[in-house]
C-alpha cells in the first residue's frame, strides 16, 4: 500500500472501481432477468407457463428480446424535437442506476488487509477507524428519483404526439403527488434514526440478531412508502402514464428500437432501486442473523430481501387492475399524505415521551 494518489491509498481506487463494476453489472443483470421473472411469475399466477421456448424454460428470453430491440428500426417522428427526443431515454435511465451509489449492500469486508465498506459512495478511514459515506444519502435518493420524471415528461413533450404528451403529463402529476407522501414516510424513519446516512440507518437496525427493522417500529410508514414508490415508478396498479387501453403506450408511444428498450430498462431498474431503498430503510438493509461472523452473508441477505420485494411488485401487478386517475389522486392526496402526517406526529409524540 505504498502508492498514494491524492492522499488515498491505491487500494481505495481499485476497490472503488471493483465495487462500481460489480454493483452495476449486478443491477443490469437483475434488470434483464427481472423482465424474464416478471413474465414467468405472472404467467404462473395466471396458470400459464410464460416464456418456454428460448433456451431451457425460456432462460435466454431477455437476451433474445434485447437482440431483437437492438436490430429494430430507429424511428424519429418528423415533427419531434430531435435533441429532447434523443436525450429523454437517457435522463430516464441514468437516475435509476446512479441511485445505487449510496445504497449499502453489505457490511465492511477485508481484502488483503484493506477494509472495504460494501457501498459504492463510501470508504473506510483506517486512521479514524470508521466508515465515511454520503451523510445525506436519503436526500440524494430523493433527488435522483425526482430526476427520473424529467425523462418521462421530456419524452412525452418531445414526441409531439397527443398520447405521449398525456402520458408525460400524467406521469409528472402522479410522481410529484406521490413523492410528497413517500418523503413524509421517510421523515418518520429520520425521526427514529436521527441521521440521513444510509450506513448509519442500516447499522441502527442491526439489533436483536439482525431483526431490529424499522418495519416493526414504523409499519404504516413502510407500507405507505412501498406503495408510494410503486406509484412513483409507474408500476401497476399505478401505471397510468403508459395505460395501453387509453394512451396507446403513453410517453413511449413514439419510441422504437434501443430507445424504447432504455425506457423499459429504466422501469425495471427503478423497480430494483425502489426495492433496494425500501429494504435499506425498513427491512434492515443487509442485516440478518450471523452477519457479524460472516460479513459476506450481508450481500446475500440484501439480495434476498430485494428480490423478495421485486417479487411482491410482480405479485401486485398480477393481482390488481389499474387505478382510475381520480382514484389515484384521491389515494395520494387524501389518504397517504394525511396518514403520513399523522404518522409523523404520532412518532414525534411517542419519541418525546420515551
Amino acid at each position, binding site marked *: 500500500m505504498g502508492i498514494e494518489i491524492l492522499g488515498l491509498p491505491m487500494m481505495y481506487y481499485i476497490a472503488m472501481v471493483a465495487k462500481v463494476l460489480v454493483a452495476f453489472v449486478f443491477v443490469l443483470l437483475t434488470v434483464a432477468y427481472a423482465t424474464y421473472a416478471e413474465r414467468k411469475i405472472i404467467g404462473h*399466477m395466471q396458470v400459464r407457463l410464460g416464456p418456454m421456448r428460448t433456451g431451457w424454460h425460456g432462460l435466454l428470453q431477455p437476451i433474445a428480446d434485447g437482440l431483437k430491440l437492438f436490430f429494430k428500426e430507429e424511428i424519429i417522428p418528423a415533427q419531434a424535437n430531435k435533441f429532447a427526443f434523443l436525450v429523454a431515454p437517457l435522463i430516464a435511465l441514468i437516475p435509476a442506476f446512479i441511485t445505487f451509489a449510496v445504497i449499502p449492500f453489505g457490511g465492511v469486508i477485508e481484502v488483503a488487509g484493506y477494509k472495504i465498506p460494501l457501498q459504492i459512495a463510501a470508504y473506510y478511514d483506517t486512521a479514524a477507524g470508521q466508515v465515511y459515506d454520503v451523510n445525506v444519502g436519503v436526500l440524494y435518493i430523493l433527488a435522483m428519483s425526482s430526476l427520473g420524471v424529467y425523462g418521462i415528461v421530456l419524452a412525452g413533450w418531445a414526441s409531439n404526439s397527443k398520447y405521449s404528451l398525456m402520458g408525460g403529463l400524467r406521469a409528472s402529476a402522479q410522481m410529484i403527488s406521490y413523492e410528497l407522501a413517500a418523503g413524509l414516510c421517510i421523515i418518520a424513519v429520520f425521526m427514529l434514526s436521527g441521521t440521513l446516512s444510509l450506513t448509519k440507518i442500516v447499522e441502527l437496525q442491526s439489533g436483536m440478531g439482525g431483526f431490529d427493522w424499522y418495519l416493526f417500529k414504523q409499519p404504516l410508514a413502510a407500507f405507505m412508502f412501498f406503495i408510494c414508490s410503486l406509484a412513483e415508478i409507474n408500476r401497476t396498479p399505478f401505471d397510468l402514464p403508459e395505460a395501453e387501453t387509453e394512451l396507446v403506450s403513453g410517453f413511449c408511444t413514439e419510441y422504437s428500437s434501443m430507445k424504447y428498450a432504455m425506457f423499459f430498462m429504466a422501469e425495471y431498474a427503478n423497480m430494483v432501486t425502489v426495492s433496494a431503498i425500501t429494504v435499506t430503510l425498513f427491512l434492515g438493509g443487509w442485516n440478518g442473523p450471523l452477519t457479524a461472523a460472516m460479513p459476506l452473508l450481508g450481500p446475500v441477505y440484501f439480495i434476498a430481501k430485494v428480490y423478495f420485494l421485486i417479487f411482491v411488485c410482480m405479485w401486485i401487478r398480477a*393481482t*390488481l387492475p389499474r387505478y382510475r386517475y381520480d382514484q389515484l389522486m384521491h389515494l395520494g392526496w387524501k389518504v397517504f399524505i394525511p396518514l403520513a402526517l399523522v404518522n409523523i406526529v404520532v412518532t414525534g409524540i411517542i419519541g418525546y415521551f420515551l
Partner: protein
Amino acid sequence: MNPITPIINGMAITLKHMFMKPVTLQYPDERPKVAERFRGLHGLKVSHSKAKCVACYLCPTVCPAKCITVEAGEDANHDKYATVYEIDMLRCIFCGYCVEACPVDALKMTGEFELANYSRQDFIYSKERLLEKQ
C-alpha cells in the same frame, strides 16, 4: 368498505394460482386431444379396397357452402362411383351436413385440424387425398 381485505384476498388467490399446474399446451411438441366427434378434415370411407361413395350427389346438394364437386361414372361391374370427388377446404364450413346426408355412410369427419397449405390450389382436396388411409 374496508379497502384492504379485497386486496389481500386477491393476492392470496394469485399466490395460490402460482402453485397450480399450468394449463398451457406446448402445442407443436405436445398434441391436443381431439374430441371424438370433432369435425375436422373429411375422409372417404373405404370398403373392399374401394371407396364406398356411390356418387348420389346428396352431399353437394345439402352442402350450404357449395364446396363439394362430384362427378359420377360407371365401373366394370356397372356400379355407379365418383370419378371426381373434390372438397374445397377454403369454402368448407365444417358443418358436417354432408356426413349426415350420406345414405351409404361413405363420408366421415376426422380429427385432423392442421389444414394449412402454401397455395390456394392445395386447399382443393381431391379424392385420393380424402380417401382414408388403410
